[in-house]
């Protein structure tokens, strides 16, 4: 565990002293938080896809599944990669269509939020995709329990949604070490200054990515942009200079929509996703908040960029840590 007063990290057999600590312990799914979720039907007709075991079990299930009602369900916010459930639903639509069995599959997204897209402009611009792809939405659904014997989920208002296959995103929580160390909020995320990335409780502890309680998306792009600002702030902290209040919640996400098309969104704490061109204003070649083939190829190119540039600490070409308003239709 972390012992902030002693400036020590206690491991099982030894301890490590520190002057400055960066917490980047991420987030994990905790299906045990919902009654009936991780019961006898876990990985039989109730699946997650945020763990290797869950994703593999779901893949095997989908290969032989004969159809019925498939729920894509979000337990509570925040979750890692908030667009993943939506992307899963889009890809499932394409998958079942390609298998020639789309007619026998009923896809419903069930969310605790008021819409599948929580931001108004995204909802307006993208709602047509749900209609085109015949994906139904059930909103404002705060799950109370899974009735795994009768294959239905029930919310606090006693609404019931039946399923044959439940693909759920369980409650996300920070690492248990954060709870053990007394450094987290009720979901074990570390309270962190949203612009500097210094933790609220300890000035020599910084936090990065999914482990923080920042009101930004828990996404790889966010952690990447944060890292650039964090590096600078740690250098400033060592030099005794004031920290830069620079992080703006910048997130940039591709959303695969199936059939070799994708969406791209670019937003921050205050600017919701809007239409436009990216990364070159007026030119693109990528389009914001609009389905296109070039976005899909952008995503494919990003795989290479990820392994060959990001992992090595090279800047993403043409994309800055803070969001630009250029090329956005605001």
């Amino acid at each position, binding site marked *: 565990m972390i012992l902030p007063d002693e400036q020590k990290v206690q491991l099982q057999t030894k301890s490590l002293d520190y002057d400055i600590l960066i917490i980047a312990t991420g987030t994990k799914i905790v299906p045990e938080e919902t009654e009936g979720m991780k019961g006898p039907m876990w990985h039989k007709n109730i699946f997650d896809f945020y763990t290797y075991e869950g994703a593999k079990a779901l893949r095997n299930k989908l290969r032989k599944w004969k159809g019925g009602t498939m729920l894509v369900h979000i337990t*509570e916010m925040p979750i890692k990669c908030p667009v993943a459930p939506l992307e899963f639903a889009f890809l499932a639509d394409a998958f079942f269509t390609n298998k020639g069995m789309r007619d026998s599959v009923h896809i419903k997204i069930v969310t605790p939020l008021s819409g599948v897209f929580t931001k108004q402009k*995204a909802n307006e611009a993208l709602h047509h995709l749900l209609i085109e792809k015949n994906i139904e939405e059930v909103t404002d659904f705060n799950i*109370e329990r899974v009735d795994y014997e009768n294959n239905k989920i029930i919310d*606090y*208002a006693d609404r019931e949604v039946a399923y044959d296959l439940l693909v759920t995103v369980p409650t996300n929580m920070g690492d248990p070490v954060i709870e053990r160390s007394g450094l987290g909020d009720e979901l074990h995320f570390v309270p962190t200054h949203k612009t500097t990335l210094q933790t609220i409780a300890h000035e020599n502890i910084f936090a990065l990515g999914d482990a923080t309680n920042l009101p930004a998306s828990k996404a790889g792009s966010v952690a990447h942009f944060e890292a650039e600002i964090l590096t600078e702030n740690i250098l400033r902290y060592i030099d005794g200079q004031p920290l830069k209040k620079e992080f703006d919640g910048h997130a940039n996400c591709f959303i695969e929509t199936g059939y070799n098309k994708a969406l791209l*969104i670019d937003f921050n704490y205050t600017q919701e996703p809007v239409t436009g061109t990216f990364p070159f204003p007026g030119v693109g070649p990528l389009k914001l908040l609009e389905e296109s083939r070039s976005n899909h190829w952008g995503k494919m190119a990003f795989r290479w960029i990820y392994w060959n540039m990001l992992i090595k600490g090279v800047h993403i070409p043409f994309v800055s840590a803070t969001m630009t308003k250029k090329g956005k239709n605001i």
Partner: protein
Amino acid sequence: MKKVIANTTVECTEEGYLTDFGQWNKDIARAIAKEQGIELGDDHWKVIEYLQEKHQKEEALTIRGIKKSGVIDVKTFYKLFPGGPLKKATMIAGIPKPKGCI
């Protein structure tokens, strides 16, 4: 935009959330509640005070928070503010609608 609630002109969003908590008072709360078909009783006020307190501390308002608050259990919360309890309760409490991240 401006709206007249309980004979007072207040600033609010298109959805009807007050944008300046300084303009909130109990009469306004009762009037907003009435528009939502809710008659405020003691339990409602307890929830409203809890939400306002959390909001002042800049803590996120969630169903989980309600569950752990000890103020009220979630089932009762749904009965007090039927259909979207967090959205309705925050509107009545004069604080912003809780946001989700995309």
